[in-house]
């Protein structure tokens, strides 16, 4: 199957948050009690029960006193995924046929390293189930020919789903010269058609995996093998080239290296000898 993607156009979003409800509905995620902190944005953050959310942002504008932006926040399905790099369990995070990063709860060990490894701070760790949770680009719908439910629900087309190349071409036709995520991190599975700099929409200009994670992946992992394996090989070489350091008793008395038997001391031996006589 071809690589699929979501194309999000914040300017088309009216902030209805139907996508949030649709996502909860399809993925059977329960509601969470949140606090009102003086805005329409709710829930305040992604949680193990919120795979996507609309960020309400007020930014300065030339025409109006404020410009209200509604920006979808969810897994970006990076081609070069930090979460997959750092994941400690095979099969917990896999790449689907359509290019999405899919979670498998049964394989997840709950080490929550992916939470730290993600450059977009997306995966969430569920303390109750001890598993990670995040958007899977509806990996249980897409292979069956259905669109992700957030895109299906969206009334304005702010979230569009389709072949990645087609979406990119469409965005370019509409006048978005540069689509966010076209080249970043090997190509994101969630594309953004931003009118302005990504920073205004709350996204890093150049998203990147943490250097420590990259260094660990590139150098420390091979060094783990080299360290223990190389040293073992070196010890084998020592055994062949130099050989073991055998200690031998100087006198010609029998040794008791391999037995438990404690040889009697000279005094005792003499005493025994005398009693026998």
């Amino acid at each position, binding site marked *: 199957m071809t690589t699929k993607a979501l194309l999000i156009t914040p300017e088309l979003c009216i902030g209805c948050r139907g996508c949030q409800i649709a996502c909860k509905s399809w993925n059977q995620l329960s509601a969470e009690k949140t606090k009102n902190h003086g805005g329409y944005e709710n829930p305040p953050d992604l949680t193990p029960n919120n795979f996507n959310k609309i960020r309400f942002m007020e930014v300065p504008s030339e025409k109006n006193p404020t410009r209200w932006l509604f920006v979808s926040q969810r897994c970006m399905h990076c081609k070069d995924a930090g979460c997959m790099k750092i994941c400690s*369990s095979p099969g917990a995070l896999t790449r689907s046929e359509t290019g999405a990063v899919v979670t498998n709860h049964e394989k997840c060990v709950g080490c929550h390293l992916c939470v*730290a490894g993600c450059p977009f701070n997306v995966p969430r760790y569920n303390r109750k189930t001890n598993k990670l949770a995040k958007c899977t680009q509806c990996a249980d719908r897409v292979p069956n020919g259905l669109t992700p439910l957030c895109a299906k629900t969206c009334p304005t087309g702010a979230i569009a789903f389709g072949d990645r190349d087609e979406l990119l071409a469409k965005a370019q036709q509409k006048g978005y010269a540069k689509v966010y995520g076209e080249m970043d991190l090997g190509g994101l599975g969630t594309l953004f058609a931003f009118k302005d700099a990504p920073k205004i929409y709350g996204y890093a200009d150049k998203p990147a995996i943490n250097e420590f994670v990259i260094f*660990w992946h590139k150098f420390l992992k091979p060094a783990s093998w080299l360290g223990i394996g190389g040293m*073992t090989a*070196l010890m084998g070489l020592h055994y062949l080239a130099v050989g073991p*350091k055998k200690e031998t008793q100087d*006198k010609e008395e029998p040794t008791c290296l391999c037995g438990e038997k404690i040889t009697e001391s000279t005094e005792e031996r003499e005493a025994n000898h005398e009693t026998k006589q």
Partner: protein
Amino acid sequence: MKLNNNDLIRKETASSMTNHWVLAISCLLLTLSGFAFLFHIQSIGDLFGGFPMMRNIHNWLGVVFAVSLFLSMWNWLKECITFGYNDIEWCIAAGGYLGKFWKKKAPPMHKLNTGQKLFYLCLLIFGLGIIVSGFFIWLSPGFRTIMILAHFLHNVCFILIGIFLPIHIYLSTLGNPGTIRIMIYGTVPVWWARKKSQQWVEEIEEGHSH
């Protein structure tokens, strides 16, 4: 008091031997499961009852390792931070382990030789690093920067311990035939102790040490 060469002399007590066994087994199992996590080795994961179960075992074995490493300080720390001139000589002679390639002989040592002392100190320092970082990975979900740095440190310490571990295991088994009996019986023949730990035997004979 002169010790007879054919007698056995106690080098490790029952408590220090138990300490070493617990430390050794937990360390090896942690290494094995750690490798499985690093390289996604399914067969090792199956051996531990699947990856999610291996994660629990790895974490709790870490606690066992931490406790036994902490208690080991009562057994070996004092000996291992006592260095003398003979330790420099030992290093120059490479412990006498290079045979025909470097014919210098190892000087008389105390209960433990320089290599053993340095290995213990390495294990203590990098072990502390791996324990502290391990607990941070385990117990600090949400603190992304701490998690990444702890994960990084965990692996650096793992590599360093992994470098010294094969030397320690080799020299206590194949490299020095007969040494393994210290792990099993805790005793060594006096003539053997004279070769390996001459200063210690002399101190006992003079009545200074136990």
